[in-house]
Structure formats: structure tokens, C-alpha cells
């Protein structure tokens, strides 16, 4: 059989596919983080905790209120997004005129509090979320679980819908303009503070949506998003800050690269993104899709 670097090409194809699926999560998470960073100038260190909140909200809805996955998929991000709105109104809005270091300290502290409270209440080993669409298809080169196929499609749809909302609608235009020059946009009569609140809610909702999608695959545990922010922010930086398309493409792309690393040098699979980030920043300072302003 023909082999490439010791791996059968068909096996490699399977690896690329699962890499793409993981990339879907990066894409959704980095999208939210990028939108928030663009608008609020805050690296939302609570992003991982909010991803966890999404998964937990769906799990609580299922176990306590008997709300099925498909409704939870819509409801949980709304609830968590609303929680984000409250956080923004109560706390984050006090920081916009300050250096983004304070945003880091605040969101980092919030993440500790949120994760700690969930840890206290539900312990560390996580809660089971049953797979809503079990089973799968044998593609010949691999067994593809139906749910994973759903995730990658759903993520694509969500990413494209977000892209469309930001790049092609009026509200998205406000958002892009306010990212560049919030003062002027406000002087045109647009309620920028409300736009910021909405943006934060949207970003948080996206994180929560990714969390709900993750719940049936990974264990729903309080620390499931703990180390995610750094990786996801690296994706944003590689894609080019402020570029929506960049976040999406880079998210999927890095999923692929990480997937390949898991085959050829698995130990390094959590480091490879940072290596790429360093190289990209040194060669193309504004990221792959970023515009230098």
C-alpha cells in the first residue's frame, strides 16, 4: 500500500477530518473572542468559563427541566449571553477608558470565581451529557460519528451566519465602524454603549453555543474551558485581529494542523499553535488576514 510518511493516505484523511471538527470549535470560540476584543479592547479571559457555562446550562436544562438538546442549543446560549450582558453592564463597562490590562485582571478574576463556584457545586470530574444523535457512518477510512458530522456543519453555519451578520448587515456595519472609531460612531447618533453590550452578549453567546455543542463530546466539567482562552486568542492573533473571516479560516486551519500534529508528534499538539503564532507574527505582523491600520 502506498504510504505517506508512514501513514496510509486514507488514515491521514480521517485525521484531517477530525482535525477539521476540532477546528470548528476554535473557529466559533475565536470568532466570539475576536468580536469582543475588537469592540471592547478586552481580552475576554472569561471566555473559557463562558464556554463551560454554555455546556452546564444545557446540562442543567436537560437534567433539571427536561429540556432536550435541540432546544437547549438555542436556549442555553441566550441565557449565558444574557449573563454576559449583565456582567458587561455591571462590571466591564467601567473599564473601557482604561488600559486593557485591567480588563485582563477583571475577566481573569471573574473566570476564577465562576469556575470555582461550579467546582464547589458540581465537583471536578464532570457531568455526563448523553449524545443526542448516537451512531455513525463507516466511511471506509474511518468511523464518523453522526454527532461530529453535525458539529462541523453546525459550526460552519454558525460561523457563516455570524460573518454575514457582521460583514453584510447594517448592524454589523455599526459594529465594524465602532470597532474602528467608537467616538465618531456615537457622534453619528448610534448608542455605542448599547452596541458594546450587545457585542459582548453576542461573543459570550457564541462561546456558550460552542460549549453546548461540546457537551455531548467532552465531559461537562467546571474546568473544561480553563486553558482555552490562550489557545483561542492565539488563533485570533494568527488570523489577524479584527478580521472575522480570518478568525474562521484560521480556526478551521489550525484544527487541521493540530490534527496532523497529533499524528506525527502528538506531544507537541498543544504547543504547535503557539509556534505558528510566533512565526506568523514575525513574518506578517498583522496576522494572516489582518489589515495594518
Amino acid at each position, binding site marked *: 500500500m502506498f504510504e505517506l510518511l508512514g501513514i496510509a493516505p486514507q488514515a491521514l484523511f480521517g485525521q484531517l477530518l477530525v482535525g477539521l471538527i476540532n477546528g470548528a470549535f476554535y473557529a466559533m470560540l475565536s470568532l466570539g473572542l475576536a468580536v469582543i476584543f475588537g469592540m471592547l479592547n478586552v481580552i475576554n479571559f472569561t471566555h473559557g468559563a463562558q464556554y463551560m457555562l454554555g455546556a452546564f446550562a444545557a446540562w442543567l436544562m436537560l437534567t433539571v427541566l427536561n429540556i432536550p438538546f435541540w432546544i437547549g442549543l438555542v436556549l442555553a446560549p441566550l441565557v449565558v449571553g444574557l449573563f454576559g450582558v449583565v456582567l458587561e453592564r455591571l462590571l466591564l463597562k467601567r473599564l473601557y477608558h482604561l488600559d486593557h490590562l485591567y480588563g485582563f485582571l477583571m475577566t481573569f*478574576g471573574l473566570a476564577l470565581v465562576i469556575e470555582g463556584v461550579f467546582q464547589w457545586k458540581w465537583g471536578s470530574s464532570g457531568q455526563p451529557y448523553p449524545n443526542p444523535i448516537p451512531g455513525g457512518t463507516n466511511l471506509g477510512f474511518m468511523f464518523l460519528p453522526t454527532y461530529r458530522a453535525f458539529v462541523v456543519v453546525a459550526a460552519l453555519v454558525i460561523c457563516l451566519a455570524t460573518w454575514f451578520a457582521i460583514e453584510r448587515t447594517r448592524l454589523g456595519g455599526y459594529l465594524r465602524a465602532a470597532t474602528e472609531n467608537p467616538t465618531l460612531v456615537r457622534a453619528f447618533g448610534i448608542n455605542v454603549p448599547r452596541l458594546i453590550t450587545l457585542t459582548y452578549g453576542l461573543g459570550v453567546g457564541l462561546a456558550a453555543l460552542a460549549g453546548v455543542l461540546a457537551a455531548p463530546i467532552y465531559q461537562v466539567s467546571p474546568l473544561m474551558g480553563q486553558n482555552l482562552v490562550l489557545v483561542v486568542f492565539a488563533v485570533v492573533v494568527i488570523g489577524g485581529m479584527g478580521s472575522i473571516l480570518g478568525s474562521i479560516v484560521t480556526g478551521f486551519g489550525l484544527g487541521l494542523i493540530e490534527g496532523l500534529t497529533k499524528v506525527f508528534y502528538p506531544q507537541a499538539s498543544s504547543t504547535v499553535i503557539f509556534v505558528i503564532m510566533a512565526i506568523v507574527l514575525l513574518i506578517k505582523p498583522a496576522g494572516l488576514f489582518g489589515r495594518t491600520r
Partner: protein
Amino acid sequence: MTNNHTLRNILLVAALAVALAAPWVAYPVFLMTALCFALFACAFNLLLGFAGLMSFGHAMFFGMAAYFFGHTVKEWGWRPEFGILASVLGAAALGAVTGALAIRRQGIYFAMITLAFSQMIYFFCVQAPFTHGEDGLQGIPRRAFLGGLIEVKDDRAMYYVVLAIVLFGFAAVYRIIHSPFGQVLKAIRENEQRAISLGYNANLYKLLAFILSAAIAGLAGSTKAMVLQFATLTDVTAAMSGEVVLMALVGGIGTLAGPVVGAFVIITMQNYLAAAGEWVLVIQGAIFVVIVLAFRKGIVGEIGDLVRRRPKPGPAGSSA
């Protein structure tokens, strides 16, 4: 201003007295650890507070220096003072390499490049056999200083050695900030273009600041390894890089005393809040939120304001 100077001198003398008496009141190993972190935070602050460069990977210098120290002293049988010297040089060399690349970018990009380098260093430390991975490089012997002149088996004796090393580090930071070099750094922080147009090679200054900061972080890391007799992966993680940012922020960026106070606050929290068990992190998180909302200039910054009683000084006004 004279008033402030007198006050400052009184505070300095008082702080020194407290530092000398401390090991007879508090647990010396805890104090030594906190001192090492204080120096680490000062090194970080030298870069952020005075050169305006936010490094998100400073743990690589701190942690690698600890490994350098452990390896030279334990495996090669070096004397501790040479171990420290080697670690400082090693950290400086690492700083030179990473800094030369990182300073080509600014702001958040600079932070992300340093983060990327520190993640690579972390990976290296997980893989390299000499670090003993998750177990850590344990059981570094405590050897007498200066060829047997200063015995350090006793924790209190060790404390005074550590105090001397750390004070030396503080003095170095103080000298750097108040030298013409430090003035140029501040000028670059305020307005890089103007500094360049005045004929300063801004990149060279930034690189030097980065290397000095790395070296002092290395001094702190190796001293800590000497005190605790081990070097572990914790010291090279991104979490540790984040912790030092927190120390500087909590204490007050751009003040000399701020990072020291911040380090003591955070290390004390970790050690004494630990009894709160599962609530440690929640309490820590809540404190960070409160600091941002209410004591934004950090502990030292806020106290400085109270003392000066000025309505609204400029950002990062250096005090102390």
C-alpha cells in the same frame, strides 16, 4: 517634595527593619519564597512599568533559571553562588534571543510573541529529561555559600542570604530606573517616535531592558530553587506568567514598591487562604475584581495618592 523624601526614607528604614526581624516572627521559608516572587515581579515591572512592554511569558526566565540552578548545583556539584551566576547568565541569554525577536512587535503582539516563546520553553521542559517532567528536579542540595564561609542549613541563616540577594536585585532595578538609561526608556514608553527622532536607538534600549528584566527574573528563579530545593514545571507555565502580571497589577504598575507588595499579597493569599480549601480560587478571583473596581492603581499606587493628596495624577506616576 522634601516632605516626601523624609517620608520615603522613614519608610525605607522601617521596611528594612521589618525585613530583618521578619524571620523571627513569620515562617522563614514562606518569607523567602515571597521575597523571590517580589524580585520576580520587580523584574517584570521593570519592563512593563518603565519600558511599557507587557511580557506574557516571563515565567520562562524565572522557571528556566530555576532549572539551570538545580542542574548545575545538583548534577554538576557547583557552588550555589556559581549556580546563581550561571542561571542569571542563562536567563539573560534566553532573554537576548527571545527579546531580539519579540521587540520587533508592539503592544498585544509583543505580549503574544513572548507568550508563544514561553509555551515553547514549557514544552521543552516537559520533554527534556533533565527537568524530570512532572516530578520536578527535586532535592537540590543546600550548600554553604562562598566556599563554606556562610552556612545556610538553618532556614533563618538562609533567609539573610536570600534577603541580601533580593535586596541586591532591588537595588539593581532602582539603579536601572534612575540611570540615564532608565530615563531614555521612559521617554520611549511615552513616545517612541519622538525618542527615535531624538537619535535614540529605541529597539536597542528595549532589548537591553528586556535582557536586564530576564536576568533579574532569573536571579529570582534561581534563588527560589535554592530556597525550596527544587525546580518544577509550575514555574514555567503560562499561569506563572499570568501570576506575575497579577502581582504587578495588584501592587501597582510603575511604582518601585508596588510589585513587592503585590507579590507578598498574592503569595500570602496562596499560602494562608489555602486553608479555605475549595474556596481559594474564588476568593482570589473576587479580590482581583474588587481591585479593578476600587483600587485600580494597585495598593502602592493608591496609598501614594492618599499621601500626596493630589486629585488626579497622571497614569503610572512613579512614586516611592
